[in-house]
C-alpha cells in the first residue's frame, strides 16, 4: 500500500486513496507506462491495453465538472454518513489529460452547479467521530475527498 497522506491529523476513509504532493494531498491513481491510460484508485492491470505496467501517479487537484446530480435521500448501508441527512452533490470531474473522477461535491444546490464549471479537490468530513456509531477508531470526524467549485470560500 502507499504511504498514508498527511491530511493534517484528520481521519480519512481510506488512506490508500491519497498521496502527498507539494501542493497538498492529491488523489492517488495509476498510469499505464505502455499506453498512458489512467485509473482511480490505483490498480495493477491496464483497462485499455490489458497490460500490467501500471505506475502510481498523483492526480490533478483541479478540473472541470463533467456531470452532476444531487443525492436526495440518505442511502442505505453500506453508506456510513452522518445520521442526519443533508442532500449532497455527486459528480464526475474531468482532470485534463488524466481521467474523469467520481466524487462528492461540496455544493448541493442545483442552481449553483453547471457542467463545465472549474472545480478543486477538497477533504471534507462525511461522518461524525467514530464511537458515535462509526468504526470505533476514535478521534474526530471521518473525512473523504470531494470537489468544490474553484475559487469559492468554503
Amino acid at each position, binding site marked *: 500500500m502507499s504511504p498514508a497522506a498527511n491530511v493534517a491529523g484528520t481521519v480519512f*476513509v481510506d488512506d490508500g*486513496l491519497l498521496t502527498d504532493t507539494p501542493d497538498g494531498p492529491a488523489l492517488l491513481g495509476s498510469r499505464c507506462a505502455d499506453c498512458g491510460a489512467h485509473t482511480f484508485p490505483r490498480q495493477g492491470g491496464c483497462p485499455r491495453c490489458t497490460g500490467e505496467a501500471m505506475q502510481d501517479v498523483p492526480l490533478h487537484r483541479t478540473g472541470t465538472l463533467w*456531470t452532476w*446530480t444531487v443525492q436526495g435521500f440518505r442511502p442505505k448501508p453500506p453508506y456510513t454518513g452522518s445520521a442526519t441527512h443533508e442532500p449532497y452533490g455527486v459528480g464526475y470531474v474531468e482532470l485534463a489529460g488524466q*481521467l*474523469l473522477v467520481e466524487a*462528492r461535491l461540496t455544493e448541493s444546490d442545483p442552481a449553483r452547479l453547471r457542467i463545465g464549471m472549474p472545480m478543486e479537490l477538497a477533504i471534507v468530513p*462525511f461522518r461524525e467521530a467514530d464511537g458515535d456509531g462509526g468504526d470505533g477508531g476514535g478521534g474526530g470526524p471521518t473525512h473523504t475527498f470531494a470537489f468544490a467549485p474553484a475559487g469559492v470560500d468554503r
Partner: protein
Amino acid sequence: MTGVAIVGAGMHRFGRTDGVSGRAQAVHAARAALADAGLKFSDMGFAFGGSHSAGDADTLVSELGLTGLPFINVYNGCATGGSALISAHAAIASGAQDVGIVIGFDKHPRGAFDTDPSEHGIGSWYGETGMMVTTQFFGMKIQRYLHDHDIEPGVLAAVAEKAFRNGARNPMAWRRKELSAAEIAAAPMISHPLTQYMYCSPGEGAVALVLARADRARDHTDRPVFLSGAAFRSRRYGSFEVFSPWLALDRADSPTSEASRAVFEQAGIAPSDVDVAQIQDTESGAELMHMAETGLCADGEQAELITSGATAIEGRLPINTDGGCLANGEPIGASGLRQVFENVLQLRGEAGDRQVPGGPEVGFTHVYGAPGISACTVLTREETR
C-alpha cells in the same frame, strides 16, 4: 446452426405478493410456461435461470422435478434474465439441445437496492461515502445526455406518464394507476433531474420461457415466436457505466449500442423494422437514452418521438407497452424475461387491452445491468434466416 423458437411463456404477476416466496413465484411461472407449450418438466433437456436475492434457480428442481437435467445458475445483475436467455439460445442454436426452459425470478425488500462494493472489486470507501447508489448514476448520466443533445428535462415526466398509462392496461403490472406528467414532475426529487415517479422500484415477480429448435417448434405450438437474435455485451474502455469511481477521457459506445448492433445483424433485421420494443427503463432517462443507444432513433430525436405519441401503444414505434420497469417494478432476475414475455404476447396478438394494432411482426428487447452489461433480443413471427 439451427433456429430457436419460444414455444411457451409463463409469468407470475409483478409487484408485491406477500406470503409467496420468490421461489414459489418462479415455480408458478415455470408451470405456466410448460402448460403453454403443452410440455412437462421431464421433457426439458436443460435449464438456465437466476435471481439476485431470492435463491439459486437450480434448486427449483426440488419442486419442479428431479430429472437430472443440467440446470445452470445465471447471476448477471439486472441482465440476469437476458443472460439466461442468451445462454439458452446458444444451447439450442449450436445443436447441443432441442428443448429447454429459462426461469427468472426475484423478491427484493422495499427501498433502493444496496450493493456491496467488494462484489464489484471496489474498495469499501465507495459505499461508505455514499457513491454506491444506482439512482445517482442515472441522474448523472441523463444530466450529461440532456446537456449534450440539448433536450428539455420536461420530457422525462412524459416518459413516466406513458409507462403508467400502459401499466394501467396490464393486469400483470404492479402500478396500475395513471399519473399525469405534472404529478410526476412535482414528486420529490431523488437524484436531480429525476423525481420519485421517474424511478422504478425493486419488486417481485417471475417469468419462464420454454425454448425449442425452430424446425420442431410447430410440434409444440401453433403460434411459435422465433428468437431470431440474442446478443450480450459488457463494457468497453471509455463507456459510461454504473459504479465507476472513474471514467476514461475517451468516450466509447455503450454495451447497449454494441449488443443492439450485434443482435440486429444476427437477425438480418434493421432497427427501422421494429414494430414493438421493450427497452430498459429503470428510470425515465434510461428509456430516453436507450432509444438512441439501441438504434431505434438518433440522438436528440427522442423528445419529438415521445411528445408526439410515436412511442405510445398506438404510435409508430411503441415502447414498453406493458408499462416497463416503471410500472412493473424490477425483480432483477425476472425483469429481462418480462420484456420477452410481453413481446411474445404482442407478436401472438394476445396482449389484450394493450395490444399494438396492425399485427406486429418484429419485437425487440433490451435489458441493461450493473456494472455495464447489456442483453438484447429480436423476436419475429416468421423465421428471418
